[in-house]
């Protein structure tokens, strides 16, 4: 502990509290001068200030900084697009879904989008009780409007809104609903006749696009 003769205590205390900002040169001029004057006459505090430099260097150098992750950015964009589609832009965070759920939903959507091909092939032969694809068709995001030219679409996580627009442009496609928690959109292909042949042709064309992970028809019965 500090010697009683080196007090007044308040001055030591005040200087000790300011030392970290003294060594990084982030004090107001009057505070800096106060510390400087004190250190000139107090060996103990001056030694503490010297040690503070070592601590500063240690903190600054002791941890590596990772590089930005493309996957992380893709997940963020997907999360934002989900918000854009499901709700109009809101300036306040209070209107957002609970953070924890939002994070899990985004993570789930990204995970499903990245690994969708195999599960879809598997599930095609074993739908739910009503034949619907339960993994991709949550009730809130896959309401079928009765139009015969609506399709369910899942895109890669890093597809920009502009690219999505260009993908749908040949069919005058508009997003009717979604994405759901699995990243699936319901899209109406307005220029496609609502018959099997025209729709099959449009779906085949969409599936040839690299960005399209899943494109399937939605039948009025709920079966693809």
């Amino acid at each position, binding site marked *: 502990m500090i010697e009683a003769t080196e007090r007044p205590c308040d001055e*030591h205390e005040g200087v000790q509290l300011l030392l970290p900002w003294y060594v990084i040169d982030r004090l107001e001029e009057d505070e800096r001068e106060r510390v400087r004057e004190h250190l000139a006459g107090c060996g103990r505090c001056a030694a503490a200030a010297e040690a503070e430099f*070592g601590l500063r260097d240690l903190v600054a150098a002791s941890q590596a900084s990772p590089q930005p992750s493309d996957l992380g950015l893709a997940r963020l964009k997907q999360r934002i697009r989900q918000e854009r589609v499901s709700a109009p832009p809101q300036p306040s*965070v209070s209107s957002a879904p609970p953070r924890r759920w939002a994070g899990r939903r985004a993570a789930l959507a990204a995970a499903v989008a990245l690994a969708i091909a195999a599960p879809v092939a598997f599930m095609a032969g074993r739908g739910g009780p009503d034949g619907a694809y339960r993994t991709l068709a949550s009730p809130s995001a896959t309401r079928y409007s009765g139009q015969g030219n609506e399709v369910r679409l899942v895109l890669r996580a890093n597809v920009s809104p502009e690219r999505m627009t260009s993908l749908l442009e040949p069919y005058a496609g508009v997003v009717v609903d979604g994405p759901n928690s699995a990243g699936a959109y319901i899209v109406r292909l307005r220029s496609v006749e609502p018959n099997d042949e025209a729709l099959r042709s449009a779906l085949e064309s969409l599936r040839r696009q690299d960005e399209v992970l899943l494109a399937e028809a939605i039948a009025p019965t709920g079966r693809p």
Partner: protein
Amino acid sequence: MTAVGETGLRDDETADWALIRRIGDGDEAALERLYKRYYAILCRFVLRITRRPECCEEVVNDVMYIVWQKAAATTPLSRASTWILGIAHKRALKAIERHGRDSIAVNDREALELAATDDMTDLVSTTSLAEKAFALLTPEQRAVMELVYYHGLPYQDIAVALECPENTVKTRMFHARKRLRVFWPELTGQVVAAGDAQEVDA
């Protein structure tokens, strides 16, 4: 004396607010630029606070999502980095809550055991001495120390970022240094323990 601030953020505060204004207009490209600019900084800050690498990306994603949501309604009263780091601080503390305070990271446990033994021979022989030392601090103390010594923020800015009184910032730093005194000789090459002078009320 040399000011810290190796983050490189200080010189581009105006540009950052310009990006944030564009984000408020719904510009995804601006968000991507801000994300790439802050990713490493935020990861480091979150990792320092939480000491859980698995939390970093999730928290950074949360932070940038909040920036996206709040950008249109935020007034640039502080530096952009101060605002963003403040959001990151809150999210990091929430991440710790989610993971449970009883699930102490392995490094934390090791550090506490080593500190309890006062066996400096063991301490000196460890290569991650600094990390073990920081494990002795509370998340709030680690946040302040990082904001001071890595970001070079004045205590006034830290008080804004952490939404607490300036004196709280000073005393958190003071007590952090006190907790580190067991490591002080090895950390700094000094025999004097900073903060050993007198008590300061938190």
